[in-house]
């Protein structure tokens, strides 16, 4: 099976890799590029733990082929903080204890970032439906929703 050569941009950096035609972008990120922040909770697009942003669209990286990233822009959790300064969502997730085990957290943060980019002032209901593609089994979502609400208000003020 011939490998596919891919040139892409990940978190602002130019990246080149060779992948198999049936390899998912999630596997490429985790196994070839060492970016293990995106997690595989299901591999079928049902849990959102592998969420990334692909050309300004929120997607599950388990439902994208590595080959499809050619010429596109990929954003992952590893690119969310700037240096040692956390994104307001990251900060608010910490302050609100919006994570327990933390396995779903990278996916939630990416999804919440996309949500606030498209809707800077969401209602609770909009947050809940906007994040319905991300499963969390620890928190009951309460503190996650509050963290997103708080981050939204901070980001509006900024």
């Amino acid at each position, binding site marked *: 099976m011939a490998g596919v050569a891919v040139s892409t941009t990940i978190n602002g950096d130019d990246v080149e890799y060779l992948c198999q035609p049936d390899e998912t972008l999630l596997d490429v990120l985790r196994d070839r590029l060492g970016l293990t922040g995106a997690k595989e909770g299901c591999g079928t697009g049902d849990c959102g*733990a592998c969420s990334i942003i692909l050309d300004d669209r929120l997607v599950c990286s388990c439902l994208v082929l590595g080959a499809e990233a050619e010429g596109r822009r990929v954003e992952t959790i590893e690119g969310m903080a700037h240096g040692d300064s956390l994104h307001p969502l990251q900060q608010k997730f910490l302050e609100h204890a919006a994570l327990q085990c933390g396995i779903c957290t990278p996916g939630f943060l990416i999804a919440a970032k996309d949500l606030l980019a498209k809707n800077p002032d969401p209602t609770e209901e909009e947050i809940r439906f906007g994040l319905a593609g991300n499963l969390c089994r620890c928190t009951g979502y309460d503190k996650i929703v509050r963290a997103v609400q708080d981050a939204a208000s901070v980001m509006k003020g900024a």
Partner: protein
Amino acid sequence: MNFDPRYSGRSFTSVGTRPIRPDGVDKVTGRARYGADFNMAGQLVGRVLRSPHAHAKIRKIDTSKAEKLAGVKAVITAADLPDLTDGDAAMYDILDNCMAREKAFYDGHAVAAVAAVDARTARQALKLIEVDYEVLPHVVDVDEAMKHTAPLLNDAIFTEGLDEKPVKPSNVTKRTQFGHGDIQEGFGQADFVVERSFKTEQTHQGYIEPHACVANVSSDGTADLWVCTQGHFVYRQHCAQLLGMEASKLRVTSSEIGGGFGGKTHVWAEPVALALSRKAGRPVKLVMTRDEVFRASGPTSATSIDVRIGARKDGTITAAEATLRYSCGPYAGMWAEIGAMTAFACYKLDNVKTVGYEVLVNRPKTAAYRAPSAPMAAFAVESAVDELAKEIGMDPVDFRIRNAAQEGTRSSYGPVYGPIGIGPTLEAAKNHPHMKAPLGKNQGRGMACGFWFNFGGQTCTDLNIGMDGSVSLAVGTVDVGGSRASLSLVAAEELGIDYGQVKAVVADTSSLGYNDMTDGSRGTFSSSMATISAARNAIKVLRERAAQTWDIPVDDVIWEKGHAIAKGEKYGNLAALSLKEIAAASGKTGGPIAGHSELVADGAGVSFATHICDIEVDPETGSTRVLRYTVVQDAGKAVHPTYVEGQYQGGAAQGIGWALNEEYIYGKDGRLQNPGFLDYRIPVCSDLPMIDTQILEIPNPNHPYGVRGVGETSIVPPLAAIANAVSNAVGVRMTHIPMSPPRILAAIEAEREG
């Protein structure tokens, strides 16, 4: 060891505050390493071949074609693992579940495994393994499995606990009984008696992180295992015992864990990964798919429960009885037994009897799931309690308050209670604004109580003070929900220093003495006790060093607010020495300063909760919506209140999912129909409202700070609370969990048609 664990009633500086957790930044930046985030040079990919049959004899397994495939480095079957047939029965069962020896007992049961250079080769290799099955009749329903005509899973099993030794084998492995008094007499005194039967379907813990490990066995017999687990010391013991290794030569490192809830208290694929690595002579990474997690890890029991409760007109319960049948999967368990113990634990009863039956079925081995067995029993009992209150004409909260257990009550499972929180949670619920809020059309309110024992157990903790005065705390209980923050608070409290000066880590099995698992809500309870003890031992050393520095007797040195102070007027001119100062001089005063602690944390205080919820039902479709939810629970002492709230909310959410939509669905062929998050429907964000919490603090007399475990009890009341709410909304008693829309609609229609 002269550690006194009794509650002292002290006031706190750090404990009870809400700082950011030490592992937080790594978790929000994607840097935290979970089970599947670890790799080793030269590592192989392990994959497991699983039975497609619910019940089948394995006649023969031919692995020769797979072995010949280029890139395959090892293939194993049960023949490659020790034969424990004549050894410890429990260990035999654990190993048989990891790799079927004679029969495949359920859809998904492991029958062979491969290690290959990549995932694609491993997948191909699995297809080349030929298994000759003799398919046998199967049974998945707990009531069906108890019938004499049911297919037998194991003809060597004869029911234990019967008055007469049975002559025929059975799927019922054991009968257990609890209670006291005379229930016949009790029912004789009753003016009202409610008798009902209930069923609950099997559910899964649903942790988002699939089981994952990297095993590396060297030719010299030493080995490393990186794994997501709730108890790396227990995994070490089990793996070593199953594979005939020396425990101390197997170092197990617990990764960050992406949820467990009881499901990561058992070994599943870890012994397989070690066996593959041993055979291949290379590291092997084995990660389960989501499909494998559902089919072949350990869901909770499916149950069938009969309850009968009698009360006098004045609202006093006179007798209570329950028969509980719990599925165990293919191996003996004690799930009905726990259900039988917890069923009536909330109440003060003169006459009570519970009987449990453990039932084998062709489903995956039952594992613990958050307060295992208690939610189903509470569903049955609390539903019947609501019915009885209604028949008597009493408010359901008042009825429960009247019958609530209290200090001195003989519990339904035997011992007499110390100070407990069931009464206070009920009073708090009664006075909660939620109880008085108006309800709209098609809406119903329900409430219910729950109980869990809480565990203690073996615990070992090290506290090391660096020369700069910072403190590293090495604990052996895996952090599943923020315990490193709680334990750092405890260390800071005891030493009288800032939380920020303490860094807690979970140590591997070679760096610390044995610890029981993080289960039974014991993590913070046990490790905080050991941390307090370790800190006190360190303080003893700190005082000695100060005494040495001052050249005065150590008995004249006290420890206060992070400082050694020379006690008495004669030392008036001696300035207090801070921990930092003593640490800086430690190299000259006798070397490193540390405190260690090894103890059995006994005296875990039992835990009670009361939940209230409002549900709206669409009477045309049976669809439900959770409008409002309130949790009231006793924490003894909330060390980090935010994480205590998190436990309350998380348990409630899992209970809501169980009550409404989650269930294992088997086809007629005995295969699991919904092994994925698409059709195994755990609650999504838009399904839930905010979950309000109220923390009560009734100190546990057996812990220095009064701490009780808080992790599990919150999943006990929701099934019943929601069933009561739905029943109140639609006017029909719901008796089958989950109350999925088709079940609710069918109940409404049946009532309508009379």
